[in-house]
């Protein structure tokens, strides 16, 4: 019973391609996130999203776009992939509302993206 799942686990692709990473959570959480972890393990938030609001980190290129078909899913689309996009991408979720709104985040297993 995986709480936050991501697919694929590994993604190897050529520069210039467009790819997507899928994320699903079965926790009933209101808010989902995408993070990028670079080769030095530095973690940066890319997006946070609930059914009311999308917050975009201003440093994220507009080649990256989140798409949420429903509350349980937040997919990440990346256009025109570049070498510097190589990283591990983590999806996360948390309740985000009510008494649990300051609670901990639950992270997915990560997707290792390699751009050649």
């Amino acid at each position: 019973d995986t709480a936050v799942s991501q697919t694929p686990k590994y993604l190897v692709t050529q520069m210039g391609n467009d790819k997507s990473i899928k994320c699903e959570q079965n926790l009933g959480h209101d808010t989902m996130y995408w993070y990028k972890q670079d080769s030095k393990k530095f973690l940066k938030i890319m997006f946070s999203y609930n059914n009311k609001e999308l917050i975009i980190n201003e440093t994220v290129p507009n080649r990256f776009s989140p798409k949420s078909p429903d509350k349980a899913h937040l997919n990440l689309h990346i256009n025109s992939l570049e070498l510097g996009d190589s990283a591990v991408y983590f999806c996360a979720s948390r309740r985000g509302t009510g008494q649990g709104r300051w609670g901990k985040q639950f992270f997915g297993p990560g997707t290792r993206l390699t751009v050649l």
Partner: protein
Amino acid sequence: ELKVEQNPLFLSMQEGKNYTIYCNYSTTSDRLYWYRQDPGKSLESLFVLLSNGAVKQEGRLMASLDTKARLSTLHITAAVHDLSATYFCAVDIGGNQFYFGTGTSLTVIP
């Protein structure tokens, strides 16, 4: 720009010893989180600190938050090998925005 700095970045300690990891941040916030990451794995939540003076303990780890000093600490007591991992603090500035620290890579040596 918000900065979240951890020190040390690398820590090698012997089993049975005590040590403290520090997390300093540069903006006002009274919500801070600690996470653990094993090599090649995802992040696991350790502690949620939601107010000035908050202290949480689990096993050999204890976390505290001083919002006035903009400082959080993660104290390790009598370290064991299983604690070897990278530890991250993360500051919540509101609006679902989180900023992670640089991480502290801990190795516990027998």
